[in-house]
């Protein structure tokens, strides 16, 4: 197990290095650039040339990469030039990551708590109206563009009904202590209940919008897996042995059916990040997705580099954790 983890980690380091080279070259080959983003209509060819020279953008790309690598190895990932000018890009990432993690976790919790029971029930009553209804519902979930769903939710619950705040992460005037920068968690840890409640209210709408696609996918996987497992011999055997329905459900059906579900949850981390770019834009939510969008708009190379590299790293690590979770759930993997 340890050797397996070490090997996977080494592979990850190599992959990240290759990615950093490609990313670096690609960002700088994008049309336009940080200079025109900084100067706008105030730019003149002379001013732009001066700034390009000062920022070292005239040097050959490998020279620029070498400078970047040298500093990155010292833990210096450059300074933001657009998202937060003057702020180290790493700090931008550290500040915004907890926001996106919090949002993703709440979205995933919503997706899982709805999709798994619904998937199980649908599978047990395969072909019934509940089954057909939830299948169609999940297909609609995939067919609705995420950002449109986000707008509709916001329009109904924030603008028309006024139940929930329309954007952001916290209300002005909530004087909260921030430890982890996950605002809801912070509120709970410091027992500032009003801050936690405020943060939660800000999370609901974006999380629901973000959960639509994971919900649909997890629902379908759960349903399919439960149908598969129910036909397996060991379930029939268990039933023949006269085990209670509860034991069969818990120990045989769900345990086995959850294996593919866990995998798909891991895969959905990437999808959540993509969805976060759209959802965070709609809700002006200060997370990674928003920083990515603004970073592209203003050609903020250092921030884009850190965000994309770290997203890749997180993706790799989460998938490694999923593999380990597998080993825990599935005894066959464990004994190998």
């Amino acid at each position, binding site marked *: 197990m340890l050797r397996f983890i070490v090997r996977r980690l080494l592979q990850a380091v190599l992959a990240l290095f290759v990615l950093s080279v490609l990313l670096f070259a690609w960002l700088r080959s994008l049309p336009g650039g940080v200079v025109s983003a900084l100067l706008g209509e105030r730019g003149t060819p002379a001013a732009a040339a001066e700034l390009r020279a000062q920022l070292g953008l005239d040097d050959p790309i490998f020279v620029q990469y070498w400078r970047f690598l040298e500093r990155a190895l010292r833990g210096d990932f450059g300074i933001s030039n657009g998202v937060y000018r003057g702020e180290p890009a790493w700090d931008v990432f550290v500040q915004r990551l907890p926001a996106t993690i919090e949002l993703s976790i709440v979205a995933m919790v919503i997706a899982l708590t709805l999709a798994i029971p619904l998937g199980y029930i649908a599978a047990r009553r395969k072909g019934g109206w509940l089954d057909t209804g939830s299948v169609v519902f999940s297909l609609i979930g995939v067919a609705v563009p995420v950002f449109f769903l986000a707008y509709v939710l916001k329009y109904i619950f924030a603008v028309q009904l006024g139940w929930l705040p329309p954007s952001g992460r916290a209300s002005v005037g909530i004087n909260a202590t921030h430890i982890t920068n996950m605002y809801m968690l912070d509120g709970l840890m410091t027992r500032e209940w009003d801050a936690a409640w405020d943060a939660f209210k800000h999370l609901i709408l974006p999380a629901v919008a973000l959960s639509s696609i994971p919900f649909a996918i997890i629902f379908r*996987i759960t349903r399919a897996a439960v149908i598969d497992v129910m036909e397996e011999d060991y379930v029939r055997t268990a039933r023949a042995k006269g085990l209670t329905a509860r034991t069969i459900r818990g120990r045989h059906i769900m345990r086995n059916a959850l294996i593919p579900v866990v995998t798909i949850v891991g895969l959905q981390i990437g999808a959540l990040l993509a969805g976060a770019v*759209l959802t965070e834009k709609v809700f002006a939510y200060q997370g990674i997705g928003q920083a990515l969008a603004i970073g592209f708009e203003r050609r903020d190379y250092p921030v884009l580099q850190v965000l994309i590299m770290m997203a890749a790293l997180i993706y790799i690590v989460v998938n490694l954790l999923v593999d380990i979770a597998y080993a825990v759930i599935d005894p066959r993997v464990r004994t190998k």
Partner: protein
Amino acid sequence: MTSLTKPGDRKKARIDSLAEAGALSDEEGVSLWRSAWHRLRRDPVFLIGAVIIAAFVILAVIAPWIAPHDPAARLLIDQRTTQNPVPGPQPGFPLGADDAGRDMLSRLMVGARQTLIVGVLATLGGFAGGMVLGTIAGGIGGWADTIVMRIVDVMLSIPSLLMAFSLAAMFARPSQWTVILAIAIIQIPIFARLLRGSMMAQRHSDHVLAARALGVRPAPIVFRHMLPNSVGPVIVQGTLVLAVAIIDAAALSFLGLGNPDDTQPEWGQMLGRSQQYFNTHPEVAVYPAVCIIVVALGFTLMGESLREALDPKSRR
């Protein structure tokens, strides 16, 4: 149940099982299609999807002739002011106009054609790219297979929509073609895996072995014997990709990465560009959104029911 030890394996397994389904020998394939058709005919999910798709395709073909107005003509531009940027419904313009004074109904109708073009071309592009990679991997095998499949696995591990954003941002001049290309590229690994799996399954099937024994060269074997037998899974995947392409085009437009030229309307672009009216004139967004949802649902319903009908496992 197969043991899946790596993340992504489930995704891959889904693709692979689909590939196997179509990779049977000719005779079995015929009976597979027959039984699938037998099941599909009575499947309400499939029928609903098929009706939606048929209506959509017919509309896309005949739209320019039945649309009441030229979708690019700014007929009601003089009615537009910033106080009332979207001229409302009036005689001859049942749905009103968009923010450039162009007839909304005509734009929606003609939009079906552009939407279909984006969906079909993106899917064909993904299929073509996938076919090249899949044929190299599945047809040659050995080291080519290893290299190609490594690349495909890496591509599969990147969230597809993020990759589409990055690809679309890469092009100096965004256009309809860059949107199509970005969406096509993210479909390549899926098609490649599908076709490769299908070919691997056929490598040792009787009709391929027979053809090889008769001295048929590799290329004809691939194109005349192996590819036709992969049609089933390709069609299933194709219908699903069409839905994704239409939705992704909207997402790209929403992020400002879509086709900026809107003289020829496309639903995703109409929705993506309507964000500034979500507050005051939500209908401008709702019309194309409903079209997209219905058509995407149609393709998904059809794709899913086809998948189920062709899946050897569900035939038990």
